[in-house]
């Protein structure tokens, strides 16, 4: 019962949770259950990031994906009242296409990744990783950071324009 054993237990719990809830997103009968499964999958994925000691990214993932994005999805689902949308799926041909694509991608991925097997755990984290991260984000990449802020503003204005009564071409209703 050493630390490595618990690390494996944690890894398998988080990995099975993330993949299982991802399956539920696709298999869910109603969009609401799909959205909640997506939130759970994101949280388990954030757990994997915590195990990789990427604490900040894990927190951002939970706040932005499992929080804001899922709330947006749920809001839109409620707005459109999608309860009647469950039912018919693609036929056998679509499923066959999915199977072929998934199997070929899995084989290609395996062939690319197989040489990496048995590499052992990650190297130990640098003691000043947070300091490094802050310096990279706020000193070296300060211009992209500011541009991202502008992007968020543009997106906000754009979404408001898109959702106005009358849609994107709101001029129609004017005299």
């Amino acid at each position, binding site marked *: 019962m050493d630390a490595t054993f618990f690390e*494996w237990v944690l*890894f398998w719990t988080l*990995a099975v949770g*993330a*993949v299982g809830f*991802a399956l539920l*997103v*696709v298999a869910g009968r109603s*969009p609401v259950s799909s959205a909640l499964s997506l939130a759970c*999958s994101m949280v388990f*994925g954030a757990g*994997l990031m915590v195990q*990789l000691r*990427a604490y*900040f*990214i894990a927190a*951002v*993932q939970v706040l*932005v*994906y499992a929080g*804001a994005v899922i709330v*947006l*999805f749920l809001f*839109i689902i409620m707005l*459109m009242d*999608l309860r009647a*949308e469950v039912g018919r*799926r*693609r036929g056998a041909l679509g*499923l066959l296409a*999915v199977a072929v*694509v*998934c199997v070929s*991608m*899995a084989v290609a991925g395996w062939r690319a*990744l*197989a040489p*990496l*097997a*048995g*590499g*052992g*755990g*990650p*190297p130990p984290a*640098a003691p000043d*990783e947070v300091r490094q*991260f802050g310096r*990279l*984000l706020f000193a070296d990449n300060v211009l992209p950071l500011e541009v*991202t802020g502008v*992007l*968020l503003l543009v*997106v*906000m204005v*754009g*979404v408001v324009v*898109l*959702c106005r009564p009358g*849609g994107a071409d709101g001029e129609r209703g004017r005299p």
Partner: protein
Amino acid sequence: MSPGLLHYLAVSGLIFLIGLAGVVVRRNIIVVYMCLELMLAAGVLAMVVFSRFLGQTDGQVFVFFIITVAAAEVAVGLALIVALFRARRTTRLDELNTLRF
């Protein structure tokens, strides 16, 4: 031996494949969009994994930007879906087969 690069990448790849299958199989445009988000999250996870195993923090900074832009993209996409729903009164992809109103 703790979980290695291959294990984390396998999880990321599986989530990506599940998302891809969902995009192809499902017909509700909102669920398809959720599956797209799933694929994006799988990519983000792979990037964090590589950043950690290479011992470089740059990847995490990049992931931060990716998540920010992805959130903006979700907002715009959902606004487009709402506009589409207003014009056509449906969210089924097999009924949304033309770009004209």
